[in-house]
């Protein structure tokens, strides 16, 4: 993921007409492009949108998508919701944690491992999202394949 800079942030704000009511959309665009929202960006957004820093902070903290720490180059999410659990997502999560030697919510090396609550792929559960793409019917073997594919893909 690219490194966030003030100029791009400003450009995104302008793209949304610098409307404070579009704060969630602006933050979402920043996270999709850069992966997270640094403190500096919060300050900048407050300035450029005429909001208080506390307001922007509040919104950033409220939504799970708005990470305030830099994630790894690859983001792997495993669905923890009920339908996926019915098809073994708990065991899949154990497998992932063991294989990657890390826990859910952690970032290690170039990978961030996160829980997600339903990808709308419940008829093909368990479901996993790797760098924004959803995969279904994921067992341990297929998970290992996905990891291998992810690592060999050009960034």
């Amino acid at each position, binding site marked *: 993921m690219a490194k966030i800079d003030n100029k791009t942030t400003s450009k995104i704000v302008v793209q949304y007409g610098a*409307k*404070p*009511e*579009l*704060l*969630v*959309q602006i*933050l*979402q665009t920043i*996270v999709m492009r850069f992966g997270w929202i640094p403190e500096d960006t919060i300050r900048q957004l407050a300035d450029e949108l005429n909001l208080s820093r506390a307001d922007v902070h*509040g*919104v950033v*903290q*409220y*939504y*799970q*998508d*708005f990470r305030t720490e830099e994630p790894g180059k690859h983001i792997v999410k495993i669905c*923890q*919701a*009920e*339908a*996926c*659990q*019915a*098809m073994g997502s708990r065991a899949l999560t154990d497998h992932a944690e063991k294989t990657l030697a890390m826990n859910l919510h952690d970032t290690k090396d170039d990978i961030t491992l996160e829980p*997600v*609550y*339903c*990808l*709308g*792929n*419940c*008829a*093909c*559960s368990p*479901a996993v*999202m790797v760098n*924004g*793409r*959803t*995969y*279904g*019917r994921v067992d341990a073997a297929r998970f290992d394949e996905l990891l291998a594919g992810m690592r060999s893909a050009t960034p």
Partner: protein
Amino acid sequence: MTRTKMYVPRETAAVSVGADDVALAIARLAKKTGVDIELIRNGSWGASWLEPLVEVEVDGVRITYGNVSATDIQSMFEAGFVTGGKHERRLGPINEIPYLINQDRWTFWRCGLINPLSIEDFELHQGFKALTKVIADGAEAVLDAVTDSGLRGRGGAGLPTGIKWRTVADTEADQKYIACNADEGDSGTFSDRILMEGDPFGLLESMAIAGFAVGASKGYIYLRSEYPLAHSILSRAIEAARNAGWLGNNIQGSGFAFDIELHLGAGSYVCGEETAMLESLEGKKGIDRYKLPLPAHAGLFGKPTVVNNVVTLASVPNIINLGGERYAGMGVNRSKGTLAFQLAGNIKRGGLVEKSFGITLRELIEDFGGGTASGRPVKAVQVGGPLSAYLPADQLDTPMDYEAFVEIDAMIGHGGIVVFDDTANMAQLVRRSRRKLRTNHG
């Protein structure tokens, strides 16, 4: 020589199990063998258990092949796939697959059938016919048809849609809004997604109809961020509809103005609740407004707002085309019409089943779903999401009827059905549902 039409869905479930690779393999092999094909990326028919489900059109009949993987394509071509040849993946004509033909398709009938991003294909399949009729007949006729249909909200609470629309129509204001709830946060629900990915213009048309009926010129779609493919398909559809004059200041020269903005959520379960969703649409934290007023009186930016679920809205065009009474003729008691049941979890044939109310849970799980995927006995079924209830196996004969479910302390809600077999740890499941609620409530 005519080109052979082939269909490979571009829909989350299909793509999640390899549809893009299948499409690529077909295109390559067709080129290599000199077969002239038109490869259409359709939506899903909803038979997710058969994905990737590929079709080839032979003499006007669409022949299906199920659970196709990219590695099957070579042998399929060798077996005469291009002319519907015999192969272990071949399932026969699409209009002979029991899972599909035993449904009552009212809202989802275009899903799978058409190319979701082709306005021409949409119009060939009655697209914008209802909106055109509505603009000619006037708002009163729409409000009457929706009221007559008995349509109730499919997002959870099951409130009558006609009354909601009438309330907003009757409220005086300089600006009103339509807010489409596409947050679809509960496990076991994906009908909104299948509709948006398979028939995006159908949703846009439905929102414009709602706008015309109540006097709103602007609509918002609040889409959860976990649906990137739906986001891309809807964005493109909105753009195309604007370019074709079906959204904008003067729709098809009628003087009716309506436009739609697509908003993304940001991973908060509570934002599916309508007042929280409205806060989020205003760029704020999605904390629900405990204080009244109703969105119908003071909703988005304090203006009268219709909040409806995707499936609720998408049921309307056919109510206009075929009449409210026709819709009300399906279903039972005060549960009129159809619901998009979603079979998920430990089930052999998971997917979307649009069926009239009155069908029992058992018929859905056994006849359509084929029982559990593991082959073990059903232990519990979650219907209507984590805020509803886990039903034990001895309640499977309950008919799908809003009031019958209330009687057993459950909710039909959005029609999501998650099946667990006898190995499931129910105590842990209930704990986790609670934890999820807590996490999302900060």
